[in-house]
């Protein structure tokens, strides 16, 4: 990837992380861990990959995005705000009464294509959107992001079967493989492994990707674009809580918000990173 482009994406990923911390701190609740693990992915999709326009958010030909792991809404909202769908200071209203920024994505929010949050359901809606594109001979793509714990839901595999059967090659499902879910390690709770083999067995083209390396992200999505006749699953190896030192790989940060002290530390770490990037 071009170094200037990469730097811009890294800056945006860092800003998304700041938005996640800002939102969950002000909400005094929410899910920072899994939001932080998809920051690069959100930056890449919203600033590089997807054909979208904040001025025309309902364009019938736009690419669609469904956050199947809806509890990571802080990452989606931060990306949307940064991309210009709504003011960034709205992120502070996350989960507050009267705010459009619901705890989980809601279709009424500008830029949000589908309500989600009850795990396993977003991928089915994404299948429906991809199918509509096929019926209408449109060229848009549908992107959805699932948690690695989320794929324990049976509905995910119903959807996986459906997507392959209907040859939905306009559908890309990213599995955020950070290895942790609420009750612990995914391999210790009720293991969904081997994830790659499962999607392959269901008839998907599977690509693995380093979630925090834009060169690898670009490689993976470029490969996805070449696939014909089958849906694509990208298994992204990620670090839960990425780039906030005390949150990294800590399951306790799945669904709890930073207090004031933790907020200040997280923000100063991210500020420092941003300064370096903006150099």
């Amino acid at each position, binding site marked *: 990837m071009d170094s200037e482009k990469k730097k811009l994406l890294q800056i945006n990923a860092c800003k998304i992380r700041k938005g996640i911390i800002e939102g969950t701190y002000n909400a005094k609740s929410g899910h920072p861990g899994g939001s932080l693990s998809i920051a690069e992915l959100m930056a890449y999709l919203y600033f590089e990959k997807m054909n979208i326009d904040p001025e025309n958010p309902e364009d*019938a030909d736009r690419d*669609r995005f*469904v956050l199947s792991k809806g509890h990571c809404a802080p990452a989606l909202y931060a990306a949307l705000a940064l991309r210009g769908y709504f003011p960034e200071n709205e992120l502070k209203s996350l989960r507050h009464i009267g705010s459009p920024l619901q705890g989980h994505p*809601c*279709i009424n929010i500008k830029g949000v*294509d*589908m*309500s*989600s*949050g*009850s795990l*396993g*359901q*977003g*991928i*089915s*809606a*994404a*299948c*429906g*959107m*991809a*199918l*509509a*594109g096929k*019926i*209408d001979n449109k060229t848009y793509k549908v992107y959805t992001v699932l948690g690695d714990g989320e794929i324990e839901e*049976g*509905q995910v595999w*119903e*959807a996986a*079967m*459906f997507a392959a*059967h*209907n040859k939905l090659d306009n559908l890309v499902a990213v599995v955020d493989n950070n290895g942790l879910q609420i009750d612990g390690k995914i391999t210790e709770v009720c293991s969904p492994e081997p994830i790659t083999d499962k999607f392959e067995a269901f008839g998907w083209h599977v690509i693995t990707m380093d979630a925090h390396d834009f060169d690898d992200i670009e490689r993976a999505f470029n490969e996805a674009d070449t696939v014909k006749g089958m849906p694509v699953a990208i298994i992204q190896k990620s670090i839960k809580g990425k780039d906030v030192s005390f949150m990294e790989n800590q399951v306790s940060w799945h669904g709890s918000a930073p207090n004031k002290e933790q907020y200040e530390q997280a923000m100063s770490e991210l500020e420092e990173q941003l300064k370096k990037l903006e150099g």
Partner: protein
Amino acid sequence: MSDTVKIATRESYGNIITELAAENPDIIVLDADLAAATKTGIFKKAYPERFFDCGIAEANMMGVAAGLAACGKIPFASSFAMFAAGRAYEIVRNSIGYPGLNVKIGATHAGVSVGEDGATHQCCEDIALMRTIPGMTVINPADDIEAKAAVKAAIKLNGPVYMRFGRLATPVFNNNEDYKFEIGKGITLRDGGDITIIATGLMVWEALKASDELKKEGINAGVINIHTIKPLDKELICKAAEKTGMLVTVEEHSVIGGLGSAVAEAVTECRPVPVIKIGVNDEYGYSGPGAELLKKFGLCSENIVEKVKKALK
């Protein structure tokens, strides 16, 4: 009455979606491996490119319908009531109801008249489940004419609609020029000053027969057809409560949460009167011929007559 033509409302469903698809290219039909039974097979034959079999996976089917609707299609997600409203409840609630998507749910094989398949397939809880979902319209048509009119009206309404159809061939009686279907508007079929029978779905015919029987015995029982359980025609129901002072509800559904509950809820706010509920009394069905099961569960004119006479004593 014995000469009355009989058609199952599931048949009406399959026929009307096929007919309307000619003019409306947005209509897409989904099924979950029951196309022969739900009668969406009629549509599949005419428009194979607009029919998608989701396999035995109702949860995903409802989600796919949501995604199609989010892209401007009018999906008809079809299965048995047990699976459409029961198994897929939470997907209907969160992926269709909450985002307010324009999905039409065609739920066939409702109630005990499913017959021989028995309790696991006899859904008597679907109205209760569906009417608690904010924004969901719930329609339970009484015959072929009404089932077709309901589907036509559902297409014109931009939002989620749950439509309930039966397996059993039942009398067609709304075939008159005055018949008019409007979502949320009950239909007064008989005027009567002594008591009002409020019925829905296949029970409307039984209510009419009961009213005729009662007339012979000098009892004037009004009959109201409530095809739309939600939004409920509270005005008409409260007027009936005012006029006759007592109501009898009849439904092929549990007495908990269905028409009877909805009517009782309505009259407690406007004109509290006794509401005698005829329905499935908090129990499971069992195997047997559908028509005979209806009688066993008291979902027949004879039982309505008996309950009315007892109530008026």
